[in-house]
């Protein structure tokens, strides 16, 4: 069962364009993380947000956690070829056995020079 759905699944844009990736769920999460994964490598953490409505900026990337802590968005301004990769959101929950992270379905971004 996939708790987190991402959209779009695939995105191909020209260098310089803006884009937004969405991560949606019907479940509430204690935290929401975004990772970027390049081919042949493991995901690398970009950001963690924990408060409903929280907005974090990382250079040209803006991350927002929904007020109800069920969804999140990633906005990239003036995309560059180096932004190409698979973007994954991950929701953190405290469960009876400890902590679990539920990963989204992924968004594959290609930025064309």
């Amino acid at each position, binding site marked *: 069962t*996939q708790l*987190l759905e*991402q959209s779009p699944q695939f995105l191909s844009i020209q260098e310089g364009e803006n884009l937004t990736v969405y991560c949606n769920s019907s479940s509430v*999460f*204690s*935290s929401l993380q975004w990772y970027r994964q390049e081919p*042949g*490598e*493991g*995901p*690398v*953490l970009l950001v*963690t947000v*924990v408060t409903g409505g929280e907005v974090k900026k990382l250079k040209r990337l803006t991350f927002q956690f929904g007020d109800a802590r069920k969804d999140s968005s990633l906005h990239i301004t003036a995309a560059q070829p180096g932004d190409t990769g*698979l973007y*994954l959101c*991950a929701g*953190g*929950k*405290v*469960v009876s*056995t*400890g*902590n*679990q*992270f*539920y*990963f*989204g*379905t*992924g968004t*594959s971004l290609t930025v064309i020079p």
Partner: protein
Amino acid sequence: GAGVSQSPSNKVTEKGKDVELRCDPISGHTALYWYRQSLGQGLEFLIYFQGNSAPDKSGLPSDRFSAERTGGSVSTLTIQRTQQEDSAVYLCASSLGQGVIDTQYFGPGTRLTVL
């Protein structure tokens, strides 16, 4: 310092054979996770170790899958009687075990192909 390493990087096996995948976490990290990733897709949680606590095995898809972590460090994921649907990239991650704000550091994965 060294990151998370996994071996082998690629494994091709025949249906019905057993395989072992190894993960060497970052030194000092108390938490270790195993995930499975199908081509270009999201990650599927398999198992989670935290310190000396009993592992969370809730994500293991069948009893053919098992994992152990020796001495709180190296972990081995074993798949018995492999099936073609087991083909995927198996990713290991380690962390400091800081709860839901944990930063997981991933290895490069083992690509398993079952013929």
